[in-house]
């Protein structure tokens, strides 16, 4: 597929906790092409947002290693001013929480205009306003002239999320990162927003990184999907392959836990994503959560294997993975020992 728009190589994003740095994104390599939606899925805490923030250069306190090549330029080592030139212009981001992502003291119009002021200073006042109204129209906000002068608190969650999207697409970015853009929204609005992103991609030929934990959304939107677990990409493939032929135990578990037609019992992934400080840094990170699989089936130092063109899986344990016979009742799962 197309040209490489973004190439992430061996990215390690670490946070300082106490006296040590812990990698929340641990050696991730990904590419995003033009006119492509890359879906990233994973449980909460798996490092999806940390990855997105790294790409946008938004981390203030994290240590970032590796390289993020955007159109060949390395964002990691880019001077701040040049980075600012890219952000909001060539690449932009949609945030998860519409309630807090807008400045409560600024009018909607001003907030959208700001990206235009920053990147297209030559625009006249009127042009700018027209453009903003157009954007508001585009994201499906009724009565844009009126909304232009409103403040965030006067809008509903769905409207605000659309405003955020309007900000993100104002300058027709080449790369759009959407970090859980619909989690806070109702299904109907979600569908509209996803439509919007889709349109954007097809109209502007942009690359999109779509971060979500909703597998349904990924299935509908993505061209390729990366599954993240504990800071690592554990599986990556095009969307058909991933949903029809998932390999990694984690991917399979995730897919199995979604309610589906005729399913009586949902599958449960045992345990939880470990905290950053407690991640097993060696061996297969998912091993702990599939204890019924022989430990020797895990690789010592698992890497992504390309098992078919474009389909990568980490650790060879997938070859041995099976779902445990899930027999007895409630009491069985999660019997904790102190």
């Amino acid at each position, binding site marked *: 597929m197309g040209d490489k728009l973004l190439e992430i190589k061996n990215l390690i994003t670490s946070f300082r906790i106490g006296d040590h740095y812990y990698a929340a994104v641990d050696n991730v390599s990904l590419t995003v092409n033009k006119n492509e939606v890359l879906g990233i899925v994973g449980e909460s805490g798996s490092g999806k947002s940390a990855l997105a923030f790294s790409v946008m250069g938004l981390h203030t306190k994290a240590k970032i290693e590796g390289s993020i090549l955007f159109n060949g330029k390395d964002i990691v080592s880019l001077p701040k001013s040049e980075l600012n030139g890219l952000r909001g212009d060539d690449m932009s981001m949609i945030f998860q929480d519409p309630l807090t*992502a*807008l400045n409560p003291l600024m009018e909607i119009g001003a907030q959208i205009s700001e*990206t235009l002021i920053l990147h297209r200073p030559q625009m006249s006042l009127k042009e700018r306003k027209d453009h903003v109204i157009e954007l508001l129209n585009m994201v499906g906000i009724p009565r844009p002239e009126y909304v232009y002068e409103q*403040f965030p608190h006067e809008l509903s969650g769905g409207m605000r999320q659309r405003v955020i999207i309007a900000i993100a697409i104002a300058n027709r970015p080449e790369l759009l990162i959407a970090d859980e853009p619909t989690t806070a929204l109702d299904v109907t609005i979600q569908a509209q927003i996803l439509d919007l992103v889709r349109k954007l991609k097809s109209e502007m030929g942009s690359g999109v990184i779509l971060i979500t934990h909703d597998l349904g959304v990924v299935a509908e939107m993505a061209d390729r999907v990366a599954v993240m677990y504990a800071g690592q990409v554990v599986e990556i493939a095009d969307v058909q392959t991933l949903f029809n032929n998932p390999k990694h135990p984690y991917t399979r578990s995730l897919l199995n836990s979604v309610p589906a037609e005729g399913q009586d019992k949902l599958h449960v992934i045992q345990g939880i994503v470990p905290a950053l400080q407690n991640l097993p840094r060696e061996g297969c990170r998912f091993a702990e959560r599939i204890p019924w699989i022989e430990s020797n089936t895990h690789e010592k130092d698992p890497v992504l294997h390309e098992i078919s063109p474009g389909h990568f899986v980490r650790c060879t344990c997938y070859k041995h993975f099976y779902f445990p016979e899930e027999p007895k009742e409630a009491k069985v799962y999660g019997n904790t020992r102190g």
Partner: protein
Amino acid sequence: MWKFIVRRLIITFPQLIVLSIIIFLMAQAMPGDALTGLVDPNIDRAAIEEQREKLGLNDPWHIKYVDWISGIFQGDLGQSFRYKMEVTELVEQRMINTFWLSVATLIFTYIIAVPLGIISGRYNDTLLDSSITGYTYIGFATPLFIFALVMLWIFGYQLQWFPTGGSVAPGTEPGTIDYVMSKINHLLLPALSIALIQTVSTVQYLRSEIVDTKQRDFVITARAKGASESRVYNRHILRNSLLPIAAFFGYEITMLITGTIFVEQIFSFPGMGQLFIESVLQRDFSVVNAVVLLFGAAAILGALISDIILSVVDPRIRIK
């Protein structure tokens, strides 16, 4: 907007009434009256008693109160026993002085607080921040009066940069440039003394507001738009952080009142604070009452202004 102000004023009104009753009753409860101090064998006690009667000092308190309060409604705060003049007139002079002192102090307070708070909040946990925080700690722990005394000592007497007392140089003609300059010159040191001490709470407040705002999501949004760091601070963080400071304004006035009492005493600056202390000591009740009432009104007004500022600048509670 106007409705809102009116509504606030309506709430304010009973506050003032209750305040006036409290003040009045307390004044009544103080031992002695303005004539007690006339310990002079040449003055006929009967004459003093007669004066008391004439001045209504022997009436029951509620009658006195009604007299007093109805006077106030007519803009009459009564007569100062000691100064033998209308309290309104007496207070007017002092109030002008205190007013300008307060204005100067407020200006200094914010001139100091805003940059320090911003620096400290923006570069938090750096050396610069630590030194500013250090200053706020020390400012917080230093009693104002000791600080003011030392300021007077150093800048008034040792260095002789500022006048050491009064509100204006003797002999300057009101209305002239000299007069204004002299007034300002006399204000600087006392105002600075209060400001340096009282600003610390504002600095700290602003700092923590900024540290707080810094982490808010909309700041990240702004960065993601490609806004430079200075733009992020000036356009997004600062406005949001200054907002609570506006709410702080009313409280600032109350603190100021305390501050002026001390500083006027130390710099023998003839203002309301000094007048208050004097009048308490002299049992010049009409003046005590008037001063407390005015200060109370000022504080209430401060709170009102805070609310108005907030309602103007904060769209979330803006009254349309």
